[in-house]
């Protein structure tokens, strides 16, 4: 069987051009999108008036623009949920017109040229750098603690400041102080392993230095060094010798040069591009590093480098096999620490403030247990290759005695170690009933149905909710006497009566209310803070009704495609360390076909990201 070419899921160029032409028609003047906007939106969101800062007539002039795109997508959300045009408008589109509008706007993605997106030389993140030093030299990861913390994944600031350079030099010194014995002292394990006899060489010392340079650069640069790169290191050695340094201290300085070199701090291509193409596949070594830092946040291991050395890595079947292998390795916990924790919002748990008097259970040990629960849960889904839907539906979790108190299971669970527990309460289980997540989406002293609603829509289903405008009256503003006896739900619904709030809150609030039985740290309750009974029933904009968190979960779980697409998008952005733009949307759509065929399994999803067009290619011109 002929090997499948990389990116075979991508539309061919002819197919793509056809799609592109069709999309252009929908957006040009007199096209479908234009007609719809003029008929139903432009009075309030057009050239004359731009309510809420939205001018769709401007947006369709430049549909390739990121912001125009986001605005038009917001428009679709509201038009599909029948929230726009407002009820008091006489002119309302038919259901068919609404559906058609959504379909047209969806074609916006074809307007971007086929491109793997900007690929810039990427600096290792603080976490990746710490892991790299640990795995190469056995030093403590905390050796990088001074470096500034940074956003990882989409939004990563792939930049370098003088502060960081200084710290890289300081870290290089600290690493050497640990692994390099001063002269006269017994050699360290590191020196034995990396330098062999070179340190003790009495003759041919420069030759020995050359050997050392070759071996350390190969491992530290994660690819074979170029001849010129070895020469650079030898020049460092020579300078040290000229300045009356001994052979061992000259080797040490050479080593320091490796640790501060761009080839070590960045993922760099192994060889110059000779092709005339503007878009080329990543070279095998660069891909090995990219893959390894994506799944492990550390250096590629020998197996990956060996495959790269044979030129065999950049091939979908090989990559998929490697993904499976790497996900089962313990280093893959990095995928939760780097991606999962941020996706689920668990990374905020450590520093988030809670009202200590109201929630005395929220100790450091509790925060830790909550974060561990999320980690082990994420990990189990990845390792066991479960469907993405299981993030919502699973009936097990990981608890210890601390966390058991939140679940009301303290009688059955003792001991500090986290263990897998089957949950018999159908309202629990899955991320919607997970204490850590329910806590990070709450205020310090009460739940926030709105925050929870936003979280589910954006983080679970991948929808785009516009930020609340500044001039919205908030709950506390409401007449204290009038609202004193109302439950939080009743009070929140009050502000759904205001037209400026209702549009968004009709979508957001029902979901948040459906989770009101969980208090601000995720404990089950029947009464809310006002003493009124919790009403967790609701109707989603699509018309689905629910009475309990369990039923809400079941509804969310039916939205498999959205759920899987959302995780795929977020994971691809994390893998690429940038926001998704332009052609990426077409890429995701193609990945979704394959992922859906395999019931949205997590390892398939990750494999598809790894073999995707933007992950395996780069623009060189």
């Amino acid at each position, binding site marked *: 069987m002929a090997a499948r070419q990389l990116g075979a899921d991508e539309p061919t160029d002819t197919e793509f051009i056809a799609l592109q032409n069709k999309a252009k028609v929908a957006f040009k003047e007199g096209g479908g999108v234009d007609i719809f906007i003029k008929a139903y939106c432009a009075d309030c969101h057009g050239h004359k008036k731009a309510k809420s800062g939205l001018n769709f007539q401007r947006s369709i002039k430049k549909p390739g623009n990121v912001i125009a795109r986001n605005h038009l997508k917001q428009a679709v959300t509201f038009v599909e949920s029948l929230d726009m045009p407002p009820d008091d408008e006489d002119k309302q589109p038919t259901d068919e017109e609404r559906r058609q509008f959504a379909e047209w706007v969806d074609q916006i993605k074809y307007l971007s040229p086929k491109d793997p997106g*900007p*690929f810039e030389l990427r600096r290792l993140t603080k976490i990746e750098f710490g892991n790299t030093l640990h795995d190469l030299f056995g030093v403590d990861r905390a050796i990088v603690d*001074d470096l500034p913390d940074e956003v990882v994944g989409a939004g990563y600031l792939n930049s370098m400041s003088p502060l960081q350079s200084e710290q890289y030099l300081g870290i290089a010194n600290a690493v050497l102080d640990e692994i390099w014995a001063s002269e006269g002292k017994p050699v360290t394990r590191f020196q034995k392993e990396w330098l062999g006899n070179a340190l003790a060489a009495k003759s041919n010392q420069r030759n020995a230095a050359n050997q050392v340079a070759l071996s350390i650069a190969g491992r530290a640069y994660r690819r074979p060094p170029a001849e010129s790169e070895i020469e650079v290191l030898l020049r460092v050695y020579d300078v040290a010798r000229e300045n009356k340094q001994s052979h061992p201290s000259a080797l040490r300085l050479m080593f320091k040069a490796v640790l501060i070199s761009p080839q070590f701090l960045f993922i760099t291509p192994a060889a110059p591009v000779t092709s005339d193409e503007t878009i080329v596949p990543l070279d095998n070594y660069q891909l090995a590093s990219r893959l390894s830092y994506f799944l492990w946040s550390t250096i590629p291991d020998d197996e990956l480098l060996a495959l790269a050395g044979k030129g065999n890595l950049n091939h979908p079947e090989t990559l998929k096999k490697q993904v499976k292998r790497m996900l089962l390795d313990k280093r893959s916990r990095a995928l939760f620490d780097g991606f999962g924790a941020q996706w689920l919002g668990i990374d905020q748990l450590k520093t988030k403030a809670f009202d200590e008097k109201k929630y005395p259970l929220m100790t450091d040990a509790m925060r830790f247990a909550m974060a561990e629960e999320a980690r082990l849960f994420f990990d189990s889904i990845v390792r066991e290759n479960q469907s993405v839907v299981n993030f919502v539906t699973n009936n097990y979790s990981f608890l210890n005695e601390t966390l058991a108190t939140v679940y009301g299971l303290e009688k059955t669970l003792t001991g500090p170690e986290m263990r897998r527990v089957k949950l018999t309460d159908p309202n629990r289980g899955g991320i919607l009933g997970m204490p850590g997540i329910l806590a990070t989406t709450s205020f310090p002293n009460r739940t926030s149905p709105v925050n929870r609603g936003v979280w589910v829509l954006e983080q679970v289903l991948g929808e785009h909710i516009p930020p609340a405008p500044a001039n919205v009256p908030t709950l506390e503003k409401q007449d204290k006497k009038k609202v004193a006896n109302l439950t939080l739900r009743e009070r929140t619904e009050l502000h759904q009566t205001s037209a400026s709030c209702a549009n968004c809150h009709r979508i957001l609030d029902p979901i948040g209310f459906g989770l009101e039985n969980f208090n601000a740290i995720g404990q089950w309750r029947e009464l809310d803070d006002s003493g009124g009974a919790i009403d967790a029933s609701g109707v989603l904009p699509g018309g689905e009704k629910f009475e309990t968190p369990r039923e809400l979960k079941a509804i969310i779980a039916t939205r498999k495609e959205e759920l899987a697409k959302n995780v795929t998008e977020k994971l691809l952005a994390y893998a690429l360390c940038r926001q998704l733009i332009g052609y990426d949307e077409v890429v995701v759509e193609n990945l979704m076909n394959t992922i859906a065929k395999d019931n949205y399994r997590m390892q398939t999803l990750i494999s598809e990201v790894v073999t995707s067009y933007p992950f395996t290619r780069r623009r060189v011109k």
Partner: protein
Amino acid sequence: MRSHTIIDRRTCLKGVGASLALPLLENMGWAEAAAGKTYKPPVRLGFMYMPHGVIMDQFWPTDPKTYLSDPPPALKSLKPVLDQCLMMKGISGVPISPFNGAPHALELSTWLTAQLPDAPTRNRINISISADQIAANYMGHLTSLPSLELATMPQTHKENQEGLHEGYYNYCSYRSSTQPVPAITNPRSVLKRLFGNATKPGETAKADPLDQKMLDIVIDGAKDLRRNLPQTDQHKLDEYLDSVRSVERRIAAIEYHQKEAALEKAGMSSRKRFASDSPPIEIKIPEGGLRSEYMKVMCDLNVLAFQTDTTRVSTYIGSLPNGVSYPELGFNDQHHSQTHHKNDPEKVRKVAAITEFNVEQFAHMVKRMKSIKEGDGTLLDNCLMMWGSGLEDGDRHSRENLPFIIAGGGGGSINTGQFLDNAKGNQGDLLTTILGCLEIPLDRKIGIATKTIPGVIRSA
């Protein structure tokens, strides 16, 4: 404003590393009082930021005449030094359209740039150099550290509004239009950065002279790599090279200070200090989790950095717009959630308390500067410290009258003891005026600036 050519730090450094930087230090430091001339300590420039605006009627003085003796509640901690402060009302912020949905990212990122991010490339960082970094470019070569950036929260907030890059939510200092400058959040790391491996603050760090030669070779070697890269990647590598060059420069500066320290010991210092100068202040790094202690130690480190002339430019992000809690004030609510108060008295009280708290930290820093003798006066006389916020009213996100307080004499350049209740101008004008006080020449205007603000500079 004096007009002379801007000294580009890079021109001083390109390819020469330390060898050129040393004489520069000697020629341009604050030591070179020519025979017979009075010697003048250098002027230092510091910024301190608080997000989300203020409660206006508790911040703005009602009467320029009585404001020194009867300051508004938000300023009461500054009362003992108000005669060395200057307040002005009427400074407007950059209008944020078309980014109306991202008021907090912009209150921070426009604060020292006075400019909006470039709209078409909003998904990456593309704004402009910030005022503090302009100052660092001009006078950074005179000290061992060009500038110091401090914060009390990690710059890791991940929010993407209006398609803007997440960095706009986290950074206010920009070295160039594409390079934000990260801040240090750990007091120990600040000490390390200021004084390296010196054992006591105020002592100078040791430098390994061979490091400089090694870095030279690494930089040179990176050029081979550069040639093989596509253009955008070359640009990334240039950032690397630029930042490594600045390390080389620091090593040179440290060496210079080592020599100075040796000379001083031998009683031959060219870097004259007066007998009246105070010894370096002591830094106590707090062990507990109190926000006030954390904010104060960062203030102290700023004072120490200025006192020891380790740097002359600092920017201190008191907190980031994504919100921080102040349990010490008796409530756990996050700053941002309370600023949308809609005149609810409880929330207004909390926001006022948070503002007072922040001004108090600034007041602590300023008073500490006043307690330090330098030459004929105090350290404060030779500083220009600006405290401010990126919004006026956090409830409405308004930016008509951004709150700013200037403290310190700015080397005699500031018209202190005044409240300019009708200062007409924008935040770019204010930054331009401030850099003018330090006689920093500008090769282009700062953001939306069109002029300087009258009344700020003391007339001769």
